[in-house]
C-alpha cells in the first residue's frame, strides 16, 4: 500500500516529463523526416534531410568543432580538482576562495559573454592591451578561427571550474581521513597520496564530472551566440548549426535532423558513462 502511494506522488512529475520532455523529443524524430512548413502543411521527405545534412560541409565543420571543444573537459577536470585540493581544508581563507571561485558560475551567461567579448575585443580589449605592454603581437581573439574557438573555451572554463570544484569538494569530503593519515605515517608524500588514495577514491566523482562537462561541451551554444555571432558557420558548433537552420532559417525538418544527430552523440557519452560506472561498481 505504501509503495503504491509513492507512484501517485510521482505521477504529476512523470506526466510533466512526458508532455514537456519525452513527447517533444519524440516529435523531433518525426519532424526530421518532414519538409516542415507551418503555413502550407508538411511533406514527408524520408531521409532527405539527413542526406542534405551529411553532404553539407558546414555540418562537418560544426561536428569537428564540437569534438574539438571537448578539450575543455580534461582542462576543467584538472583545474577544478587542483583547486578543490588546495581549498579542501575548512578555514576562513578557503571559504573566501570557495565563494570567489564560485562567482563565475552564478554570473548570468549573457553578462559573462558580453564582458569577455569586451576583454577579447581586438582593438580596444584588455587582452591585446596586456599583450602590447609585453610587446607581444596582437591576437585575433574573435575574428580568426581557430583562435576564436579557443576564446570561447577560455570563457567556458572560467564559468565552469567553480561548479566542478564544488562537486570535487563534496567527493573529497567523504574520503575517510584515516586513509590519508595512515599513508602519511607510511611516508607517502602529497603526490603519492593524490595518485594512490584520492584519485581512486574519487573515481565515481571523476566519471560524473567527465560526463556532465563533456555533454555540456557538445551542447555549447550561448557563449558562441554572444561572443562571435558574426563569424562564419565553419567556426561554429553543432548546436549553433541547429539553431541557425531551425530558428533563423525556419527549416525545422532539417534542424530536427541535426537535433537527432546531437542527441545520438550525447547519448553515446551517456552510455559510455553508464558502462564505466557499472564496471566501477562490479
Amino acid at each position, binding site marked *: 500500500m505504501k509503495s503504491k502511494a509513492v507512484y501517485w506522488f510521482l505521477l504529476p512529475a512523470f506526466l510533466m516529463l512526458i508532455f514537456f520532455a519525452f513527447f517533444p523529443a519524440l516529435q523531433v524524430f518525426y519532424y526530421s523526416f518532414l519538409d516542415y*512548413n*507551418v*503555413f*502550407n502543411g508538411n511533406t514527408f521527405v524520408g531521409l532527405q534531410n539527413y542526406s542534405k545534412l551529411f553532404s553539407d560541409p558546414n555540418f562537418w565543420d560544426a561536428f569537428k568543432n564540437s569534438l574539438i571543444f571537448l578539450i575543455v573537459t580534461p582542462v576543467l577536470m584538472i583545474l577544478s580538482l587542483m583547486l578543490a585540493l588546495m581549498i579542501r581544508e575548512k578555514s576562513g581563507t578557503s571559504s573566501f576562495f570557495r565563494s570567489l571561485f564560485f562567482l563565475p558560475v552564478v554570473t548570468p551567461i549573457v553578462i559573462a559573454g558580453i564582458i569577455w567579448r569586451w576583454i577579447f*575585443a*581586438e*582593438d*580596444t580589449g584588455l587582452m591585446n592591451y596586456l599583450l602590447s605592454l609585453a610587446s607581444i603581437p596582437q591576437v*585575433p581573439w*574573435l*575574428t*580568426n578561427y581557430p583562435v576564436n574557438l579557443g576564446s570561447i573555451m577560455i570563457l567556458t572554463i572560467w564559468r565552469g571550474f567553480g561548479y566542478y570544484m564544488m562537486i570535487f569538494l563534496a567527493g573529497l569530503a567523504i574520503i575517510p581521513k584515516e586513509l590519508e593519515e595512515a599513508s602519511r605515517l607510511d611516508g607517502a608524500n602529497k603526490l603519492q597520496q593524490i595518485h594512490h588514495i584520492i584519485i581512486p577514491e574519487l573515481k565515481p566523482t571523476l566519471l560524473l564530472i567527465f560526463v556532465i562537462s563533456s555533454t555540456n561541451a557538445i551542447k555549447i551554444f550561448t557563449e558562441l551566440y554572444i561572443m*562571435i*555571432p*558574426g*563569424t*562564419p*558557420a*565553419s567556426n561554429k558548433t553543432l548546436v549553433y548549426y541547429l539553431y541557425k537552420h531551425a*530558428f*533563423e*532559417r*525556419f527549416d525545422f525538418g532539417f534542424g530536427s535532423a541535426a537535433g537527432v544527430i546531437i542527441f545520438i552523440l550525447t547519448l553515446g557519452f551517456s552510455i559510455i558513462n553508464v558502462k564505466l560506472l557499472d564496471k566501477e561498481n562490479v
Partner: protein
Amino acid sequence: MKKIFVAILLLGVIFSFAGCGGKEDKKVIEFWTLQLSPTFNDYFKSLIKEFEQKNPGTVVKWIDIPFDAAIQKLMAAAAAGQTPDVVNLSSDFLAKFYGMNALIDFKTKVSEDTLAWFLESALQNCTFEGKLIGLPWYLNTYVLIYNTEYIKQAGFDEKDLPATFDELIDFSKQYTKATGKFALFWNIGKDSYLPMMLGSEDVQMMDSAFTKAIFNLPPAVVLIDKWIQLYKAGVMQRESIISPGSSIIEPFQSGQVAMVFTGPVFLKRVKENAPGIYAGTGVAPAVVGKTGKHELAAMSISVLKNSRNIDEAVRFSLFLLNAVNQLKFSKIETTFPSVKEALADSYFTSDDGSLETKAKIIGARELPAAVRLQKYLLHPQFDRLRDAFDEAIQKAALGKASTQQALDEAVEKWNKILEEN
C-alpha cells in the same frame, strides 16, 4: 443552501454562454507590431479606439513583440494555429514570409487609387514577383552621424566630411593617419553594407531576373576590394567583419569612432545612452555612390492568408496607413511616412534647431531618391545569400583568399541557391 448553490451555478453557466454569444458577434483583429511599445502605447490606444468607433463590430487586439524574437513568435503562433491577422514586418521578414506563401496579395483587395497614396519606391519594397504582399508603413533612410569634437581634433572641418564612398575611404585613411584612431564603424563582413554601396554605385549583384550572381565581375570586385584593403591596412576596427548590423551604433556612442553611417532613428539611442557624445554630435547627408541613390528601409504591414477576417484586417491596415495616422506616428519618433500626402507636410521641412530635426529634414529631402539598394534582400533565401557574401568578405579581409577568389566562391554558392528557387 443547496438550492442557492445550484442557482448560482446555473446563473454562472448562463452568463458564460451569454459571454460567448457576445464574442461571436464581434470580429477580433489581432495586430502585431515590432518593438513599438511603450513609446507608441498612447498612439495605438487612441488609433484603435477611433477605428473601433468607426467600425462597430470589429475589435482590434494590439500585441507588441520584441524585434529579435519576432519571427520565432510568429512561427510558434502559426504552428499553434493562432497567427495574428495584421502584422508589422521588416523587409527581410517580408521576403521570408513570401517564401512561405503566408501573406495575402493586397492587389486583390485594394484599389489602384488607394495604392496611389504610397511612394512608388516604398511599394516596390513590398512587391515580390508582381505580388504586393505588404503595404509600406514607416520608412527610414541613412544619414552620416559624426562626432564634431573628434573631427576637429583630427584637423578636419565639417565641410571636409565625405559625401561619396570614395571620399569616405580617403577620409578614413587620413583620419587614422592623423589620430591613430578609427574614423568609421561600418559592418562589412556580417550583415554587410557593401551590397548597399554597390547598389548606390550602380553595380548590380544579380541579373534582373534574380537567376545569376554577377558580383565577381570587375566592377564589383574593384569596389569591394577597396574596402578589403582598407580593413587590411588597419583603418577599420577589426570586429567590423564580424559585428552584426544591430551593433553599428555601439562604437560611436562609446566614443571609439568618429562617424557612423546609419538611420536618424539611432540619434535617440545616442541621446539616451551617451549624453556626453550626443552633445557633440552632428548630422550630415548620407554617403552615396555615383547614382546619388540612398538606401530605403521600409517597415510594412501585411495580412496573413489564414486570417479569418481578411476584409476587416485590410480595412484596419488602410486606416493605420492613412496620411493622418502616419503623420502622427512620424511625429513621435524620427521616421518617415510612406504616403505622399503625409510626407508633403510642413513638419518635414520645419527646423527647430535640434539635431533630430536636422536629421529629419535631411532624411525627408533624401527620401525621394531612396530605393532598396540591397536588392538581394527581396529574395526569399536572402539569409543564405547574405551568409555566403559575408563569409567571402571575411575570408578576403582575413587574407585567407584574394578578393577575386573569395567572391568567385560566393558567386558559385549564390548561383546554386538561385537555381534551387
